[in-house]
Each structure stands twice: as structure tokens, then as C-alpha cells.
């Protein structure tokens, strides 16, 4: 444990030494919030986005947190991680006071009106599994396809704005590990699918039938990576606006709970 230069809050820090605080001592200290912001960008932004808007990890700029609402809840998630998820424990990598600085930075975000959607989740669920065809590629719990990303916990990790963008412009923010591999065989046939491996000499993909395919570069005409989404970009036209809201409302309910795990 190390205590550094904290000119604006020395009294609080001295009280805090050696014990776990209930809330961050840095909320009123812009300099410490700045350090927290810098630490967030360095340690957290790869998953949670440079502006905490979310990505592989949940959006944290919504003024609400899945793990609980108190400062101590947020502190514990950062320090201990979330078992069973990609969220690691930072308690061994960062000092206690710096975790509190990150907590204070996250507390600068307020709930956004943009994050509330008025829709009917039940109707959205029907669209998802039937007319929308979403379940053909996406999985929720044990149901659905495997061609696209699992949406079992998507309501935990994406803001409404992000869900809306993903529905209307699927290629706008591809998940980091999602890309398309396109192979042209020596016979001139093109095979396209979700990339499962890509190196200097070979590539692996899952084709539209869900079949695993593997190719050596020296045995085909061409192997290329494409950073596009294979999801149709026509939902803005095929679904009415209220249907889009219903679908997003349904996806907001997908939080990996109950039978959805």
C-alpha cells in the first residue's frame, strides 16, 4: 500500500489509511478525478470504451452500475473483478487510493435520457425469434444460433444508443474479435464466414452453415480479412420505429439471469 502526494485531501487519506472506506474521498477533488480519468483510459478503456461508453465491457457512462449503486460496490468490482466474466481484479495492480480515484471519475457521469427506451419487451421478444430472424444467428441462453455474438447478457453490457446503432448499422462498431474471412479457392469459388483464426500462413472460419473450415494460403488463390458485419443492415427499413423500440427493449432485458444463463 502506498500513499502518494495528495495535497487536496490529506486529512481524508490519513483517516482512510489501513481501513476500507465506504465512499471515495476524491469526489470533490478535480485533480484526483483527472488522475482517475487517466487511469480509467489506461486500464479500462480497452473494454469499457475511451469515454466509458462500453464495448466488450458494459457502458459505465450511464450513471448506473450493474454491480450495485454505492461507491464501495464499484470499488469492489474494480478491486476484485467479476468471477465468470472477462473483468479481472485490479486490486493487485493498483493502489487502493487510485481505485477510489477511478470510482470518483465514474461518478461524474449522470443517467442519460437517451438511455431510456419505451418499448414492449414481449413484442420485442416475438420479433427477435420470429419476424426479425435474429435468433437464427444470435443465441440467448441455450436457444438460438451461433453465427453471431451471443446476446445472453447484452442488456448488461450495452447502452440503448449502442443497441440502436448495432441494430441499424451493424458494421458501425464490430466486436473486437468479429471479422469476416473471405477465401477464394483455386477453383475460383469464394467461401466467406466468421473468422476463427487468421495468421500469416492459414485461416479458419465458420461458414453460413455453421461448418468449421480451415485453409492454407499456399493451397488457395487468396485469403483476406474483412472488417464488416454479416448481419443485414436493413432493419431500419424492414422494422417500423415502434418495432425497433420493442426489440431494443427486449434486448435490454437480456441480463444473463434465470434460464438465460
Amino acid at each position, binding site marked *: 500500500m*502506498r500513499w502518494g502526494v495528495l495535497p487536496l485531501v490529506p486529512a481524508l487519506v490519513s483517516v482512510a489509511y489501513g481501513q476500507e472506506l465506504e465512499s471515495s474521498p476524491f469526489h470533490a477533488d478535480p485533480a484526483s478525478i*483527472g488522475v482517475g480519468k*487517466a*487511469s480509467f483510459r489506461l486500464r479500462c478503456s480497452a473494454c469499457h470504451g*475511451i469515454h466509458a461508453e462500453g464495448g466488450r465491457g458494459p457502458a459505465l457512462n450511464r450513471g448506473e452500475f450493474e454491480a450495485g449503486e454505492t461507491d464501495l460496490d464499484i470499488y469492489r468490482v474494480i478491486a476484485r473483478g467479476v468471477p465468470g466474466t472477462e473483468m479481472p481484479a485490479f486490486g493487485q495492480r493498483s493502489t487502493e487510493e*487510485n481505485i477510489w480515484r477511478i470510482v470518483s471519475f465514474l461518478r461524474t457521469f449522470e443517467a442519460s435520457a437517451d438511455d431510456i427506451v419505451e418499448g414492449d419487451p414481449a413484442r420485442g421478444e416475438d420479433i427477435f425469434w420470429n419476424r426479425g430472424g435474429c435468433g437464427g444467428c444470435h443465441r440467448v441462453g441455450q436457444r438460438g444460433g451461433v453465427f453471431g455474438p451471443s446476446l445472453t447478457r447484452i442488456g448488461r453490457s450495452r447502452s440503448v444508443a449502442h443497441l440502436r446503432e448495432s441494430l441499424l448499422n451493424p458494421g458501425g462498431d464490430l466486436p473486437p474479435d468479429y471479422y469476416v474471412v473471405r477465401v477464394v479457392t483455386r477453383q475460383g469459388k469464394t467461401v466467406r464466414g466468421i473468422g476463427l483464426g487468421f*495468421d500469416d500462413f492459414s485461416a479458419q472460419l465458420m461458414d453460413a452453415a455453421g461448418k468449421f473450415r480451415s485453409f492454407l494460403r499456399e493451397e488457395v488463390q487468396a485469403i483476406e480479412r474483412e472488417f464488416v458485419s454479416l448481419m443485414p443492415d436493413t432493419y431500419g427499413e424492414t422494422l417500423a420505429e415502434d418495432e425497433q423500440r420493442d426489440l431494443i427493449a427486449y434486448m435490454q432485458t437480456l441480463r444473463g439471469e434465470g434460464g438465460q444463463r
Partner: protein
Amino acid sequence: MKLRLGLGILAAGGLLAQAQVDTQALMGAQQDNESWLMYGRNYSSWRHSPLDEINTENVNRIVPAWIFQSNQNGKLQTTPLVRDGVMYVTGPSNHAWALDLKTGRELWQYSEPVPEDLAVCCGKPNRGFAMRGERLYKVNVQATLVALDAKTGDVIWEVAAADYRKGYSNTVAPLIVKDMVIIGIAGAEFGTRDFIDAYDAETGERVWRFWTVPGPGEPGNETWGGDSWKRGGASTWITGSYDADLNLIYWGTGNPGPDLDGAPRPGDNLYSDSMLALDADTGERRWHFQFTPHDVHDWDAVADPVLVDMEVEGTFRKALVQANRNGHFYALDRSTGEFLFARAYTEVNWADGIGPDGRPILIPGREPTDEGTLTCPGMGGGHNWHATTYSPQTGFYYFNSGDGCQIYHGATQDFVEGEYYLGSAMENVTGEPREGSILAVDPSTGDRQWRFALVSPPSSGLLSTGGGLLFAGTMEGYFLALDAASGKPLWRLQTGGPVRAPAITYMFDGRQHIATAAGTSIFVFALPR
């Protein structure tokens, strides 16, 4: 608590007649085909061996001689040393081993715990031993230098170069010059003030220190606004070179701190992102050349300073070349520090070339901002730290490059001792992954001779041999032999783990061997008997 388990040198096939590694042996390292005695193979950091038993005609027949599993997690970035039938290997997190060159079995092992409160930016790797007499020297990650008995692995002495609690750490392979052990230091991501040190090889006492960020009253301090020099960084985390005739040590320095926010440190910020030429006996600066004044993109200049004698525009030069992280290949006169030329080797959008004075011609608006600025190369460079090679056989200089851009976000932050002091971070461009290259250039012009494309930014260093080969590795685990003349791939092996180290080669038992770290193991190859 230190762990040292020794079987003794008797186990190494009875190879008791260990010759002293003295100055003469180190000066002659390039001609010593049975050994690999220092990080860059010779004092010019060529990483070229004249061995040609394994060559372009038969490299596709090499097979593993043995594989050593270190059983240690972390990045294995070591350049092994080889001497008298023993291979000396350093690993991550303060581990090291001596291996029987015939079988790969351990002769001794060394480890020292890593402090739990150690702060490091980039893992806890180690890049190798140095050797002198019958001693080995390595840094430990908590910023210490340790001398070991090469026969047993026993600790002879250990000294602290700096206080790790202030953000210092160390990963560099030491360089032996005369009777001194030269080391650099890391820590610029934590607002440290960095240095190059020389220690007495016998006693461990410090002989000299050169602060890479000058203090008040020293030349160059005026290039730091206010007291920003105290947190100026300029780490020295890759091994330098040495010219005995000029009695100069060449060592590159890293970024100023904070990395991405230049506002707290107005000025050129000497001697960050520079090449330093230091008097070997005193550590006094003879010349410097700063590649990236007032850097705000973390473009360290620590990469190998490679010493090549060559003609540049019709004039003979004792030159120093470096593939700099800022995207340009540079040639300097190593006697004087005179700038000779620079050429971009990857996409660069922050500078419109390098002017005749050696300063980048800046393109406005490429500085990091809160919202982000797209800049090429990305934060890792260009060529980062990975070992390079110069082949006198082909006349080419080989290095690898990360290619592509990133979005640089800057933000002002207060300094807190022991915490990251980067001034924000960078992010990838959606749908545009960074890729990589292995490049061959004519060092006298910077003209590209060939390019071998990589799907990922490079991870390994390089080795060239008299067999016309260039050995390299990839992040996806391939260990490769390329034709050094053309870049054509001739052989590959999927090792099962990222290749993060440069290969070495040596003669042993009548055969040429090639060794490299990959994943958490050491692989050794030779032609079948």
C-alpha cells in the same frame, strides 16, 4: 528468499575448462562461432553470425534438438548466452536458468521474488544476461542488478539501481564494457527521472551515472519547463552498443513523461527520444541526437543502435543506424552525432519528412486531444524494441515494423508517485487492425529491398546468418527462416506460443544450432545427423 538449485558445471559434460570471458573475448565475439557472448552478439549489435552450415538450401530440413519448458508464465523475451557447452537463459519475473547445451536439461536455476507492490507498464520480462569472467549479470525487475556465479547460479552481489516504489523497474540486458556493467532503467510511464549506470563488475559499486534528464545547471535542463524535469522519464530499457576505438557507448532513450500530454513540459525535453554517445570511462556525454523533440506520441528511441561503416553519398562514414519508433529510419555519424539522413519506412502522418537539421517537419493538428487524434504510426511504432540485424553478407539492415494508425487521446493529469503518468491513452481504429512487416533496407540509403507482411504487429527480434538466412517469429507462434536476399519464406514451425525474442546461433558438437524462445519455452534446432 532466493532460490538457487545447482547441479554444478560437472554436469555439463565435463566441460570444466571454462575460458575466461574477458575484454579480448568480448571484442572478438563476432569471430567466436561456438559462443553467443552478449545481447547483440557483438559490440556493434549486428546479431549476425557467419555460420553457414544451415543455409538456404537445407534449412527446410532442420529439426528440434531439444526444447526446454521454463514453466514460468509471462513474456519470454531473452537473448540466451552460450559459452562452453552451457546456455544461460533469463525469464520473466526474476527467473533464470543454466542449460546443458547437449540435452537442454537444467544445470541450475535462479529466482528471486517480485515485490507485490511493484508497478510495471508492460509485464515483467527480462531480455538477457551479460557475461564477464566467470560471472553472469542480469537486472531484476525491481530495478536491481545482480551478479551470479556462472557455475552455480549463486548470488555474488546484488545492488539496487533505483527505488522501485517510485515507479522504477528494469528489463534490460546489461552490456559489459571493460571492467564495468552498463545498464539502463525503465519507469517513464510512472514519471520517473531516468539514467544510464555503470557498475564495477567485481564489487557492484557504481562507477558513473548519466541522468538522461538533466538537472538544474546541467546542459539541456533549460528544455524542460518549470520542474517538469523531475518527472521527465527518458527510460533506457534496451541495450546499447560500444565502439572501442572511439571509446563511446551508444544508448537510446525513451519518451518524456507524461507520454501523451506535452503541456506540463514545454520545450524539447532533452535527452528524451535521443541517441546518446557517452565516454565509456566517465559516462560524460560526447554528443546526442534527438529524434523526436517534445514527443507526445510515446516514440521511444531505445531500439538497437547498430554500428556500420559505410559510404553515404560518396563519403565513408563510421555510422550508427536506427529504425526509430517514430516511423523513420535514421543514419548518424557515430563519431560526431551528425545527422546523415532519415527515411520513412511505414505510414507516417504526423511529420512531412525529416528536415536537413534532423528535426521532424511537423504537420499541425496531430497532437493527442481529449476527443482523439488519428495518428500514424500507432503508439507502439513503427519499429519498437525488437532486436534488429545487420548482415555484412547481403549488406542489408533488417528490422520489423508495426504498421497502421491509432487514435491518441490526451488529457492532463496530476502526478502521483508510483502511479501511471501517461496523460491519457490510445485506442484502436475500428475495422483497421494494426499489422506488421519484416523489412530489409540498404543502410546507406534507407531504400527498401523487400518486405515480408505480417498479419499482426511484430513480436520477435531477428537473426541473420552466413547461410543467407534471416530468422524471425510471429505473434501467432510461427518461427520462420526467410531468404535474407529476397524475403522469401523457406521454412517455418508453429511453436504453439508467441515468439517474442530474437534467435541466436552457435556451433556445438560439430553442428550449427539455432535457438529461440517461443511461448514459455526455449527451442533449439539443428540439421539431422
